[in-house]
């Protein structure tokens, strides 16, 4: 079981490598812990230098038991076309956008401190996050439906009688086994 989370990688600020401003060619990889999916990556920003902006939406499947999403800013190396160096990493607690008082499908604007591989502060990354809330009908076809059932009052006037009932869902569940 997992949730679909849309993360828009907006921009980053004050990125450095070896205490010098990053020249450019940065991109961002997004990964959820407890997930074996390949990490989606953004396109490369070549214009923003140490203040790159991507404004790119990536979609991540976040397992229900995942606690963090990791975003990593990387920099293309000039020597090879595929190589890249890590610039900074931020671990984003899933609880920052799931489980609060605000509904999950709300758009959240979040910013995080980036840390380099020597655990030094290295700039800030700005993102927005929206959790895709599944349509109720889409998940009922193959699995047991847990929709609300209208009850019928079994006793009135404060009667203390006991009613025994078997949940209809339970019977369905047995049949599906």
């Amino acid at each position, binding site marked *: 079981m997992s949730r679909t989370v849309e993360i828009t990688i907006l921009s980053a600020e004050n990125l450095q490598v070896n205490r010098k401003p990053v020249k450019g060619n940065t991109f961002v990889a997004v990964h959820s812990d407890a997930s074996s999916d390949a990490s989606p990556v953004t396109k490369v920003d070549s214009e923003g230098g140490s203040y790159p902006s991507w404004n790119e939406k990536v979609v991540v499947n976040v397992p229900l038991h995942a606690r963090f999403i990791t975003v990593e800013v990387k920099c293309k190396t000039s020597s090879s076309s595929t190589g890249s160096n890590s610039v900074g990493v*931020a671990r984003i607690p899933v609880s920052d956008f799931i489980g609060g*008082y*605000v*509904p999950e499908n709300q*758009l959240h604007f*979040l*910013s995080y401190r980036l840390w380099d591989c020597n655990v030094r502060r290295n700039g*800030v990354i700005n993102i927005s996050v929206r959790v895709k809330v599944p349509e109720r009908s889409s998940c009922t076809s193959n699995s047991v439906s847990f929709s609300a059932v209208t009850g019928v009052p079994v006793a009135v006037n404060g009667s203390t009688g006991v009613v025994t009932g078997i949940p209809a869902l339970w019977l369905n569940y047995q049949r599906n086994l």
Partner: protein
Amino acid sequence: MDLLVANFVGLEAKLAGLTKVGQYVKTVLGPQFTLRNHLWVPQNSNLLRPFSDSTAASNGNPRLPDSLHFIDPSGRPNAYQRAIVEVGEVLQFYDSDKRFPTWGFGARPIDGPVSHCFNLNGSSHYCEVEGIQGIMMAYTSALHNVSLAGPTLFGPVISTAALIASQSVANGGRKYFVLLIITDGVVTDLQETKDAIVKASDLPLSILIVGVGGADFKEMEVLDADKGERLESSYGRVASRDIVQFVPFREVQSGFSVVQALLAELPTQFLTYVRSRNIQPSL
């Protein structure tokens, strides 16, 4: 009534109040800051003289004239009352129902432990009061019913305000909230306060802080992010926008209103929020 004297332990009692900046179109977006012309400027120059810098135990016994909470029988307002009236009168203009959730913090209600967020009206069920007059009445009656106590914690009040703002978002509300904190103490729970502010930066909320009295408010300037780095929480989340404005009452020079200084950033903070979310005024 004697409680105040008997249990008097010290330094602080603060006031926090929350106001909704009404519905977008009716208030801030609607007039498109034409309000700047008449409301952002000093209203009554008599009220705006700088507050004298009292170095004596600032909060003291509310029954003595050197206390910031002293209720002058002649009717001259104390620093808290002036801050409530001056700032409140501008803010209430944007509030559609003029009902303000109002809390006190840094005090000990009757028979209770020190509280860092209690309903100022003394009710255990609801926190709202009616209008500025309601805040003033709740404030004076609270002074008789609580004993002042430290430390100065902002975290609980900010979290309570953030909860109200997030519940409004959850219910599909189109409201922007302004939390006004009036304090004479320097914040003790700086990291918890930062955490609460960073968390609230994603909500429709701005926080105005008025420092009264002669304390050294340097720490408070840290919360007001326009002077330097963005606020950072203890686990590395960074405020997505500046939502705090801090103004020490005493620094107000003649001819320059504390209200003006306090509210200067509010339009930008509000617009940053609605623009980033592409919220359109409902016409």
